[in-house]
């Protein structure tokens, strides 16, 4: 039962988390052949190329969603429905995730975890210094930010890469527009929602945030931004929960000197992204067995706990105890109890990558071009989605 596993978790922390899965797999008698490829783009491209080349890896990390769908469409992926049936995945997975992990009613991917994207980390001391509370709404946030700025603290630590800008934008979208609006925009690409005043409000808010980042933001890596926030030179960072890894590495227990909260919002929502493994359409029995074993291991509750604690995410299974997790994770798991709060990230999850990529481009363009008005931003957004469809 040899499985070649292609993934993009090459850094120390990620690798350590993946080790939990690896160890469990080996304990069950599997042989794990590791093929790391740094960078999600590179890795996904490598998978596709190897599929076309006729030598796909047995198991590979992939984004579930439209991209995987298309591979499945062409018969390039195998399913693990047997394991899913046996493991009753339908019952334990959040429905949204279960939906995208399937193609033609069969599971073609085994989700590993849930990362939340709409987190807001903040430096407690910095807030105290500027005498502001943790804001609950975006108008509050803007007031607070002004105070912070006046106190000489950069309000938002932002790494100016398109995906980081998207996270900020989506947080605002969710916060200003509410989760229904979010779903309309991203899941249905609803014309009316896109043209609505709410959307204009979103763009206005985002435009207002432009002045709260420092000059060095563009191109900055997210972990450097996190560092600014930890040091207190910046107050807030809008980032996924993987940022907790940086905190831990810096010796900070999440929830102490650095607090975590969901980004300001009208109603509760949790923008999920999912790391998942997908399976090639191997024909030989040994590989099939290995894939099945892998699927079982991934969904194994113990593995889920061990892995996710290490990774900073929360288990994809809704039925595991949150006892051993940190406060942020507890908050996340609590939030996700409400299925309405389960939202999909626009990045590589619910949307075809052509659209999500184009959206990223539009957001980045709007964010970086300070002369662009909210109206123009909205128009650009609409036009981009229309042409990428």
């Amino acid at each position, binding site marked *: 039962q040899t499985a*070649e596993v292609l*993934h993009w*978790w*090459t*850094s*120390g*922390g*990620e*690798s350590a988390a*993946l*080790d939990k899965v*690896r160890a469990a797999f080996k304990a069950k008698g599997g042989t*794990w*052949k*590791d*093929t*790391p*490829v*740094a*960078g999600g783009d*590179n890795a996904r*491209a*490598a998978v596709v*190329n*190897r599929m*076309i*080349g*006729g*030598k796909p890896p047995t198991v590979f990390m992939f984004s579930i969603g439209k991209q995987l769908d298309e591979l499945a469409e062409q018969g390039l992926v195998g399913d693990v429905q047997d394991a899913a049936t046996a493991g009753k995945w339908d019952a334990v997975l959040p429905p949204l995730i279960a939906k995208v992990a399937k193609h033609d009613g069969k599971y073609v991917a085994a989700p590993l975890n849930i990362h939340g994207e709409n987190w807001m980390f903040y430096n407690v001391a910095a807030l105290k210094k500027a005498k502001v509370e943790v804001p609950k709404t975006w108008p509050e946030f803007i007031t607070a930010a002004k105070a912070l700025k006046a106190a000489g603290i950069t309000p938002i630590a932002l790494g100016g890469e398109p995906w980081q800008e998207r996270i900020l934008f989506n947080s605002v979208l969710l916060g200003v527009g509410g989760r229904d609006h979010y779903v309309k925009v991203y899941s249905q690409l609803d014309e009316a929602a896109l043209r609505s005043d709410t959307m204009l409000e979103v763009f206005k808010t985002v435009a207002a945030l432009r002045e709260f980042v420092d000059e060095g933001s563009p191109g900055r*890596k*997210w*972990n450097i931004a996190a560092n600014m926030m930890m040091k207190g030179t910046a107050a807030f960072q809008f980032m996924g929960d*993987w940022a907790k*890894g*940086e905190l831990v*590495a810096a010796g900070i227990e999440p929830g102490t000197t650095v607090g975590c909260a969901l980004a300001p919002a009208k109603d509760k929502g949790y923008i999920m992204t999912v790391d998942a493994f997908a399976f090639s359409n191997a024909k030989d029995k040994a590989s099939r067995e290995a894939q099945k074993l892998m699927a079982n291991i991934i969904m194994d509750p113990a593995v889920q706990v061990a892995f996710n604690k290490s990774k900073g995410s929360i288990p994809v299974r809704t039925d595991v105890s949150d006892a051993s997790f940190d406060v942020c994770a507890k908050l996340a798991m609590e939030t996700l109890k409400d299925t309405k709060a389960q939202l999909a990230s626009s990045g590589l999850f619910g949307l075809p990558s052509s659209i999500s990529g184009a959206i990223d481009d539009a957001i980045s363009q709007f964010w970086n071009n300070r002369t662009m008005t909210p109206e123009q931003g909205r128009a650009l957004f609409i036009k981009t989605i229309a042409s990428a469809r």
Partner: protein
Amino acid sequence: MRYQRLVLYLLLISATLAMAAPILIMISTSLKSMDEIRNGSLFALPQAPTLAAWGKAWSGACIGASCEGISGQFANSFVIVLPALFLSVGLGALTGYALSLWRVSYANILFGAILIGLFIPPQVTLYPMIVMIRELGLFGSVPGLVLVHVIWGLAFVTLLFRNFFQSVPQDLLKAARIDGAGFLAIFWYVMLPLSLPVFAVAMILQFTYIWNDFLLGLTFSSPESQPVTVALNNLVGSQFGEQEYNLNMAATMLTALPTVLVYLFSGRLFVRGIAAGAVKG
């Protein structure tokens, strides 16, 4: 006069510093410890030089699950580069020779067609290339990778040799034909020894290009045949966690080492080869 000389040397020395500085900084950084890097300036010399990062990069750094550094991929790179180098230079030399010294009726058209290939970015035709290599049953194997390199090197090497052979007197070919040497014998005994300077240029450049290639290595290699540039990218390119700059720089320098050595020791050949007509001028 004296004053002019002074200016000349000042210019040259400042240019030298500008050119060498990035490399020197990398080397110096690779010799520092992480603490020193965090607290010190990029330009400061290492206080306590240590080769630890180099050792780790060579054989201890973790990429994914395995912690064996880049030494294994280093060997892979050589396995790929050597045959690719000889085949591509050989094929290019033969093609250049046939195109310039033999009157093949469609030679000019073919040469023009090949030249256009010099400008086609390999990324653009990656897809069909994968399909072709798959159909040949070579995908993911070293021969497949070698073939890809030969294909993408053809235009450049052919250009080099064609320009050189263009300047070789036709009489030499005639003399050899009268001596009873055939197409290949002339190539082997007469033209190849003659083109050694150009050969050196082609070898140096092709070695650099193939060794430094990342995209083709990423696309056409299998995990077993991964070249060192891909490993380097895996080592350096991860987004999460603190960057171990000393390790990254040591790995980067290690990866570049073979080509750097080639340039250090054959720079003279390079200039001579170019002067011998490798590139028209």
